[in-house]
Structure formats: C-alpha cells, structure tokens
C-alpha cells in the first residue's frame, strides 16, 4: 500500500507544494491528493489593479487542475473538518480521506461579518467595498467609475491581513487615478489603520513618510473599529472616534478557513499554530500548514509562501526519513509596491531584518532599487503575472534565493531609526 499525502487547498501554496513534492517523492511509495472546493485559480495580486481598469476579471482566472502535475489525484469538494487524532479528513459530500501526512494550505479569507454593520445590505458593496475577492474588486471598479467626489476612506480592520501593503498601494493608486481623471481636488483620501502609522518600521518610516504627505492622503492611526453605522455611513472606533465616508474601501478582519476552527486546529483567527522555521504543527507531528493558513509572524503573501515552500520541500523529505529538519525558514518576503503613475517600490526583508535601502538582487547594478520609487519596479510587478502562471506555480526555478540575502542592502544606522516615543 502506498502512503498518502493529502494537501488541502489548491491556491498558490497548495499548487506549488504538489508540484515540488511530486518531483521529490517516490511515486511507488507515496500518493498525492489535493482537495479544493472549486476549479478556479485566482491570480490574487491582480485584485489590487483590477478596480483601476488594469485587468479584466477573466485575465485573472485559470483552471486549477491545469497547474497540477500528472499523476496526482485532484478532488473537487468542500472540506467539513479534520479529525487529527484519527488522521481523517471529512468532506461535506460525506466522503472521508485518511492520510499519513497532511498539508493545510487553505489560506485566509476576509470576514466582513466580524465587524458590526459592515456587511449591512444597505451599504455592503454599495458604498463599502473589499478588494481581496473577485466580486469585491469587480464591484469596486464600477463604484470608482461612478464616484463623483467626496471622502474616500481606505481602511484596515485588524492585523494580520493578506498582502499587508495592498491597502496603502490602493490609496496611492486612487490618488493617481483621480488625478488622471482630473477630479483629484473633489476627492479627500483618508488612510485608516489600527497600527500607529502607515509605516511602523524605522527605515520605512524615514524613507517613505513623504509618500502620504506628497499625495495629500490624510492619516488616521490607532483606529480600532468597533462598528459601522450604515444609516449615517460612519465608522466608529473603540475609543469613540468617528469617520464618516462616502466610499469606504476596507480590508475586513482576515481569518483562516472555517473548517480549521471546527476541527480545533486553529488559534482565535483560525490560523494553525506552527513552528515558524519549519511549519510543522505545534500539536501534531504529521500536519504542516503552509502559506497564509499558518500563524507564522511573516507577511501573508505569495512571495513568503514561495520561499517557505522551497525550504519546506527539503525539510519534508528529512521529516519522512525520521531525520531532524535542517532547512530553517527566515521569514523572507519580497514584494513590489505600486505607488501610482506607473511607478513602484520593492521591499525585501525577513523575520528579523526590516526593509532596507539598496539594490536588488545584485549590489550596485540591481537592477531593482529597494525602498525607492521607480518605473522598473512597476514593470517588475506587471511582469510577475507571467512568472506566476508559467514558473512559480509549477515549481520551476526562479532566480531569487529562498533565504534573504544582505547583498546590495544598505545597513540601517542608528540615526536612521526615527520612530516616535510610545506616548506620542
């Protein structure tokens, strides 16, 4: 009898995992099964640009199974729960799957229902929009088109969220969009965050602080939302501050999949507690969580999933052989940030090193400048869609190492740390 590896979730992380492990594992010894509720793979980085007319919905979707290797089993079904004590996955259709090893890669999902008033029928996707879902992004495109002016609020409900810089990018892109439509003076843009500022790391605060000022984007920090009054279209915070809006672009509370909660495998946001260096569940020796589904303190982003899986693949082979896992992940993330007007920035960082200035991937010649606006970084972001579909998902080689490198980076000096005192 072959042993069974089951992968739950056929998104960015799940698809990369089956492609990598299909090559690594002996097919005489291991069978691989992947489960997802539908057959539509969404190119999620496109959701940020779709509302501004860069992409159509159809350009962001492909069939999931097109990216799975031949020789693995694909089950299209909704997951009911996992019983980790009996190594069993229960599907909503009544079927059960028994595993030897389980990889959970079911991501994170926005939950507008977690904030009172947010999903009221009167306002939800009429004047309050999310953009991390395809229906949300499509509805928002229409709303931006029709917007005649007023207060546009860009808002984060609570950390952690998928792609943590996307709301900031949205604010920059909105500034450029309304400028291009020659109506910027009719739009007040307000950026509302539960954190202490748009930037919270010393070098970013110093280097990028100008970006909001220059674009006349107002900042409302430390805003922890309590509820939305749908009658008056006002956000109210825990300390009773009020922000009225004409158009609210919000990132609702993000949570891991519901079945993780039902299975007792998650924390209070349904993320699976794992060892942050090797993604093994802190409770079960044959369950791993990859991508956005885990509780690792890294950005919930495709680049993190990609680097993490490079390390995981090596670790998993060691784990199956009963050896200690030696390929420790460092939390490496590498993200292009859109800043509007055909420009972008690039950040490269990990668990312990904050985003720094410099050139990437090579010192001096780059070609991509770090933490600096440039056209090339924007081109990098656009080119990434091709890389994603053609190389990344299929587990092909990409010339960026899984672990972060200090090459080309300018060390932060004491003076560069600005930041404010806790009482400010």
């Amino acid at each position: 009898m072959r042993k069974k590896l089951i992968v739950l979730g056929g998104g960015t992380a799940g698809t990369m995992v089956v492609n990598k492990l299909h090559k690594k594992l002996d097919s005489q010894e291991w069978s691989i099964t992947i489960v997802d509720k539908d057959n539509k793979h969404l190119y999620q980085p496109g959701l940020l640009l779709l509302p501004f007319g860069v992409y159509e919905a159809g350009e962001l979707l492909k069939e999931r199974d097109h990216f799975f290797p031949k020789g693995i089993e694909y089950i299209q079904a909704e997951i009911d729960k996992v019983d980790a004590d009996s190594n069993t996955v229960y599907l909503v259709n009544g079927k059960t799957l028994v595993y030897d090893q389980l990889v959970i890669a079911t991501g994170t999902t926005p939950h507008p229902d977690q904030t009172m008033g947010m999903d009221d029928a009167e306002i939800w996707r009429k004047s309050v929009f999310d953009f991390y879902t395809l229906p949300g992004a499509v509805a928002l495109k229409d709303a931006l088109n029709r917007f005649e002016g007023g207060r546009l609020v860009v808002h984060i409900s609570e950390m952690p969220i998928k792609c943590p810089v996307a709301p900031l990018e949205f604010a920059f892109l909105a500034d450029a969009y309304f400028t291009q439509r020659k109506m910027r003076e009719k739009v007040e843009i307000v950026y509302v965050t539960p954190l202490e500022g748009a930037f919270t790391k010393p070098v970013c605060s110093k280097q990028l602080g100008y970006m909001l000022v220059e674009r006349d984007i107002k900042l409302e920090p430390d805003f922890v939302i309590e509820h939305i009054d749908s009658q008056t279209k006002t956000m109210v915070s825990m300390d009773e501050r009020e922000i009225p809006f004409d158009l609210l672009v919000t990132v609702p509370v993000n949570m891991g999949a519901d079945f993780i909660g039902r299975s007792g495998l998650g924390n209070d946001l349904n993320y699976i507690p794992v060892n942050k260096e090797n993604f093994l569940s802190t409770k079960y020796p044959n369950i791993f969580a990859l991508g956005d589904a885990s509780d690792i303190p890294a950005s919930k982003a495709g680049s993190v999933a990609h680097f993490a899986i490079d390390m995981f693949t090596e670790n998993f082979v060691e784990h199956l052989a009963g050896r200690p896992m030696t390929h420790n992940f460092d939390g490496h993330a590498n993200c292009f940030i859109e800043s509007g007007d055909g420009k972008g920035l690039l950040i490269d960082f990990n668990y312990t090193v904050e985003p720094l200035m410099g050139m990437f991937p090579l010192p001096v010649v780059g070609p991509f400048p770090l933490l600096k606006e440039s056209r090339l970084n924007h081109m990098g972001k656009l080119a990434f869609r091709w890389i994603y579909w053609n190389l990344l998902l299929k587990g092909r080689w990409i010339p960026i190492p899984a672990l972060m490198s200090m090459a080309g980076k300018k060390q932060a000096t004491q003076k560069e740390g600005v930041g404010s005192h806790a009482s400010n």
Partner: protein
Amino acid sequence: MPVIEIAGKPVNVNEEGFLTSYDEWNEEIARELAKQIEIEMTDEHWKIIKFLRDDFKTQGETATSRRVQTVGGVPVKEQFVLFPKKPAKKMAYIAGLPKPKGCV
C-alpha cells in the same frame, strides 16, 4: 542599540525606547516605563502586563489586542480606557516587549 538606566538598572533598548531583551525586565522597570507615558499602574493594568509577559514566553510574539481580549479576558474597549489612544503600543512598551508592526 543604546543601553540606558531605568530604575537603577542598565537595560538594552531600541531607538524608540522599547526594551530589547526579555529577561532585563522587572516590575520596577515597568512602573518607571509606565510613569514616563503617564500611566499609573493599577491591578487592572498589571493583569494585562502579566498576561502579555506570560503569553510572550510561550508564543514568542507580543499578544494582539484581540488575544488580550479572547485569551487574557480584557475587552479591547477596556484596553483603550486603561492605556488611552494607543493601547497595543503602550502595553507592549510597559511589558518590555516588541510593539505591533506592519511589514513596512
């Protein structure tokens, strides 16, 4: 990173004055840090600070406001009353733990 003296003890802090070494913290230092940001420590304050200290030891991360509510038992609204305006940052500061951060 600078070393400064708080409550008669040299401690390592970062550029914002947050302690960088878990074991250098004690209650005397916490009281002094609280005073600097104009917070008078009561039993309710200590309950949260002690929860944060214990939770960090097992989790390796500063608990979020949500976690202080669901696991520590102090509602977010009350955290705003006890540590006005910036509860998450102030709680971390007094507890000698890293502040909540985004990725940039």
